[in-house]
């Protein structure tokens, strides 16, 4: 295995009831689409309950960062309850403010420049944590003799659907 094949899971709450959920979703999608497309994987949080053993093994298979829209921390708590301990946790409300995060959820049809700036702020924080977690995972694999330096593909959805 190449260390370039190590991937990090980013699990968003994608909450439907508040703006923070919308921002968490958009920030996670940006990691998958643009920022770290080859090393990011994700999974739908509800699959931990609706899916099977493979889905529940997600946080064991990938070091995982939870991205929550509010302080209920559903993505972090559900991941740790059903799958495994997260390597890092992001609470969107720490970066955009509790009151803003708990405002009404937003359709992406109504996204403004202000919302895009919120997404960017959260993406920056995820990226910092992501790179730390990725480096630690790579070091760990090399130390265990399970990986070597080389090249390899690709990130995407962790449910096995093959979608980025």
């Amino acid at each position, binding site marked *: 295995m190449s260390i370039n094949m190590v991937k990090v899971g980013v699990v968003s709450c994608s909450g*439907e*009831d508040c703006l923070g959920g919308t921002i968490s979703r958009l920030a996670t999608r940006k990691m998958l689409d643009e920022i770290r497309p080859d090393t990011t994987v994700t*999974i*739908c949080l*509800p699959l931990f*309950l*609706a899916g099977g053993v493979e889905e529940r093994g997600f946080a064991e298979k990938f070091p995982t960062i939870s991205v929550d829209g509010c302080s209920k921390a*559903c993505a972090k708590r559900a991941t740790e309850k059903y799958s495994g301990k997260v390597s890092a946790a992001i609470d969107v409300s720490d970066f955009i403010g509790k009151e803003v995060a708990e405002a009404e959820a937003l359709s992406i049809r109504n996204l403004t420049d202000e919302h895009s700036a919120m997404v960017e702020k959260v993406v920056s924080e995820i990226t910092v944590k992501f790179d730390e977690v990725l480096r630690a995972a790579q070091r760990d694999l090399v130390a265990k003799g399970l990986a070597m330096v080389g090249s390899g593909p690709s990130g995407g959805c962790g*449910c096995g659907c093959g*979608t980025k």
Partner: protein
Amino acid sequence: MSERIKVIPCSGMGKVYGLVARESALKVVQELCPQESSTVCLAYIVTGDQEAKELIEGQKCITLDGCPAMCAAKNAELAGGVVTEKVRVIDSFRKHKGAKPGTATDLTEEGWLVVDEIAGEIAEKVKLLSKEG
């Protein structure tokens, strides 16, 4: 406890159908039936918190799912919701063969058309269920 019909999408992260489900639900609860419907964070339901369960226990729910895993329907039922309609986004796309709806990040015009269609159908169901009481 609120008697509003709960409209709960899967909001799936990996496929465009999850985004279509999410946007359809938001359109129903925010624009088409704001008095008769509301949504609940599916992620909160997944935690299994008692407070989360109380939000939908015994409540009429319409779920929208983007893939055959049917996460929204299964999780709502597990939490004690009365799921009266299980909408499968993929079924709506059968009427739009060849449509290119976009990605899990953003929708095309065709994607938004399907969102509006699904939302309209769900709004009708919400109104019927509200009348039944």
